[in-house]
């Protein structure tokens, strides 16, 4: 099997920089990380210097995703040798146990971290993901709520909670979580769009109006958000078709829907033209 560097004709520095870019952008392309990282570790370990420890961590998590326990074990051993007694390494050991579905042992591991340092957020979040992996969503929701009571600023956690609520069809609470996210990231069009979708799913005239407004906001933040454009069209036409609205509101919404249709047509034309070129 050809190595990555042979296939793409890249040097080890480019591979290392690619890994760093994936790390900074928080990509979860685990198979690619395993391919690139494994070769980097096996062939070029000495040249990497101190970078190697963070690469070990990155590759280990990717290896757990791909069920490569051999690679994960190697990385973990190296990290344990270099950083004995580190809580970050303990968390990685716990993650490996989780991947092997030894949830009891993993939970004990995280509890020992929390005993040393009650403010360690990583261990608490892993415990919650154990509950989620076991399918105990009600408990996971409860634990996550408790976690958020203490760490109100953790945006990753708010997003996770909104996802859990959506799965439980509790759209009101999911909307609350998304509102937190919209407040902390007012320029992120994806949160606006997701919020609008939740409101649309909740249904009812007021929620439909809200959803239309937030689809519009998402579009304003990013003109290219097709999903928001379709959402705008659907919410506007839904309101227009509803029997409870008065004439002015109906007219306004028909206008909005028409505008959205225009933009959708334009977008298709643009994409069509591109592919014809």
């Amino acid at each position, binding site marked *: 099997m050809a190595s*990555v560097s042979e*296939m*793409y004709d*890249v040097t080890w520095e*480019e591979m290392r920089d*690619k890994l760093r870019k994936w790390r900074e952008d928080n990509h979860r392309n685990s198979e*690619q990380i395993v*391919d*690139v990282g494994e070769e980097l570790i096996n062939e070029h370990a000495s040249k990497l210097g101190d970078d190697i420890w963070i690469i070990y961590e990155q590759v280990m998590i990717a290896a757990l995703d791909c069920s490569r326990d051999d690679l994960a074990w190697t990385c973990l051993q190296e990290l344990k040798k270099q950083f004995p007694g580190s809580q970050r390494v303990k968390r990685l050991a716990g993650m490996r146990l989780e991947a092997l579905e030894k949830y009891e042992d993993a939970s004990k591991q995280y509890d020992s971290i929390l005993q040393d340092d*009650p*403010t360690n957020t990583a261990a608490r979040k892993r415990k919650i993901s154990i509950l989620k992996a076991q399918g105990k969503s009600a408990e996971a929701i409860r634990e996550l709520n408790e976690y958020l*009571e*203490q*760490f*109100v*600023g*953790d945006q990753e956690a708010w997003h996770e909670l909104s996802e859990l609520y959506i799965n439980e069809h509790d759209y009101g609470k999911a*909307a*609350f979580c998304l*509102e*937190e996210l*919209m*407040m*902390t990231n*007012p320029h992120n069009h994806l949160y606006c769009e997701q919020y609008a979708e939740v409101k649309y799913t909740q249904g009812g005239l007021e929620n439909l109006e*809200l959803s*239309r*407004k*937030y689809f*519009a*906001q998402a*579009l*304003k933040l990013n*003109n*290219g958000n097709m999903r928001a*454009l379709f959402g705008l069209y659907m919410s506007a036409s839904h309101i227009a078709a509803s029997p409870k609205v008065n004439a002015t509101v109906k007219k*306004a919404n028909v206008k*909005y829907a028409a*505008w959205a249709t225009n*933009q959708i047509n*334009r*977008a298709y034309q*643009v*994409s069509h033209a*591109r*592919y014809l*070129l």
Partner: protein
Amino acid sequence: MAEPELLLDSNIRLWVVLPIVFITFLVGVIRHYVSILLQSDKKLTLEQVSDSQILIRSRILRENGKYIPKQSFLMRKFYFNNQEDGFFKNTKRKVVPPSPMTDPSMLTDMMKGNVTNVLPMILIGGWINWTFSGFVTTKVPFPLTLRFKPMLQQGIELLSLDASWVSSASWYFLNVFGLRSMYSLILGQDNGADQSRIMQEQMSGAAMAMPADTNKAFKAEWEALELTDHQWALENIEEELMSRELDLDGMFSKELPTGIF
């Protein structure tokens, strides 16, 4: 009074000015590493972390509350500020103002700070004064009054010498402050050799990281939140959005990324 320019022996430049610069710089670097070694871990309690995040959330609510619907904003404001069971009204944290004398960890911190910074400065300043004494080292480019003479010309007993000519001790002190920017360049920001910053910190030390402030901070947030109103940013969003066509440039690109590189 005006007088002919003094011509200093160029040996002074070679053997006094430059060595003092080197000495000051090296001492600064050593101080930085020593301060790293002596640094003690600051353990935050769960409550402190939680409180600081809550304050951040309240502040964000005030600043960005206009992006969420009015109902949601009022719900959150109510949660914080309600007369009976609002968070800011009700939560009182137990406050132990950490005075430097009673709190042992702050005492040791202060001592370490003094030892690493003030002591070397005094020692080396004195040593330089003793070694490089009896001659003028350099001239400051601006005229000084006679008041400065005893301060800047230690060891030189010449009544008629212009006060702009200074001794090596003053050159040393000049270096201590002047090399601060060099330290930032070489050691990175927030380094332990930055003396003037540390002195500033000691002066405002009482204002930093005071848990007693939590109650005051809560009260301040409560007042600020009471005053905030909800101006919904999305009031006329449709009109604003539809006033012009969507900008669809760059949405569809022919280049699809293939493979890893």
